[in-house]
């Protein structure tokens, strides 16, 4: 396996970093399996979550698109919401441009997790190795687990009994919690959450998430 070869070639990765990457792979695999299972038990053909994971490779947007369609929203709303969520990949691309290269395999691996790992690296060499190791490992873990989930979902039928529908929001909570220590982030985030919750009682799926951006108006003035 070429992936294993690449991992072995990266000597600058510490044991702790490898353990952290492995833990995030496990967590993402749980989420990936639930994504595949939820999509299939929601009525999609198994190829839909599998192909989507391979060519989109962005968990939040994938869940959002599938969720909107299952909630009765249209394909346009599903794509628009997914793209708005993925707009954050734009500044990420600037942040890790030095280690990614400007071609396909590298840029496709830009995700919340791989950017976070890359930024932990001390020098250019370490940043490069952190990014590529976490990127390749996560790509393999994510897509394999989605296939497994899609196959199991068709057999199980009810992922709700396992509580897997709570896994996706739980991963997002885990990812955004550290950033909420900053008041300049916390105030607009919580305001946006209230707006989205209120809007979701009257508006169709997709729109409440977009409306949450109004929470940015509540940003405290910089000191």
């Amino acid at each position, binding site marked *: 396996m070429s992936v294993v070869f690449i991992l072995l070639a990266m000597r600058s990765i510490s044991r702790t970093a490898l353990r952290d990457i492995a833990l995030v792979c496990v967590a993402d695999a749980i989420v990936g399996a639930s994504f595949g299972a939820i999509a299939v038990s929601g009525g999609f053909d198994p190829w839909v979550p599998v192909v989507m994971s391979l060519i989109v490779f962005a968990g939040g947007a994938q869940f959002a698109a599938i969720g909107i369609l299952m909630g009765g929203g249209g394909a346009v709303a599903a794509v628009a919401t997914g793209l708005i969520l993925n707009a954050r990949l734009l500044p990420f691309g600037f942040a890790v441009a030095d280690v990614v290269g400007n071609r396909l395999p590298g840029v496709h691996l830009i995700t919340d997790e791989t950017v976070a790992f890359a930024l932990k690296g001390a020098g250019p060499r370490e940043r490069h190795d952190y990014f590529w190791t976490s990127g390749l490992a996560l790509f393999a873990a994510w897509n394999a687990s989605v296939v497994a989930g899609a196959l199991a979902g068709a057999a199980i039928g009810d992922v709700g009994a396992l509580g897997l529908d709570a896994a996706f929001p739980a991963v997002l909570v*885990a990812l955004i919690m550290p950033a909420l220590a900053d008041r300049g982030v916390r105030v607009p985030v919580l305001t946006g959450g209230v707006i989205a919750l209120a809007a979701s009682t009257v508006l169709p799926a997709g729109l409440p998430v977009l409306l949450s951006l109004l929470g940015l108006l509540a940003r405290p003035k910089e000191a």
Partner: protein
Amino acid sequence: MDMPIAAIVALAAGTLAFRLAGPLLRGRVRLPPRLEALLSTAALVLLFALVVTSSSGGWARPAGVVVAGALALRRAPFPVIVIGAAATTALLRLIGVP
């Protein structure tokens, strides 16, 4: 359930464009720090709104997500947070909570 292949490809192409822009424009364009900060806050606002809207419905799921929030606040490891949320929701459903 209908998910046209065109929709998946559109989502993939747009996502790729976002990913490609930074590495391609690097050295030519530099985003002002304020815009960069605004973009990352906007991403967090959207992610939390997604948490809120995808958690609602019944009691078991929001309860699981609240447990995840409490665990994250106490700096629990990633897998503990995710499994804790799913286990809470599953247990509540097992005893008949919707």
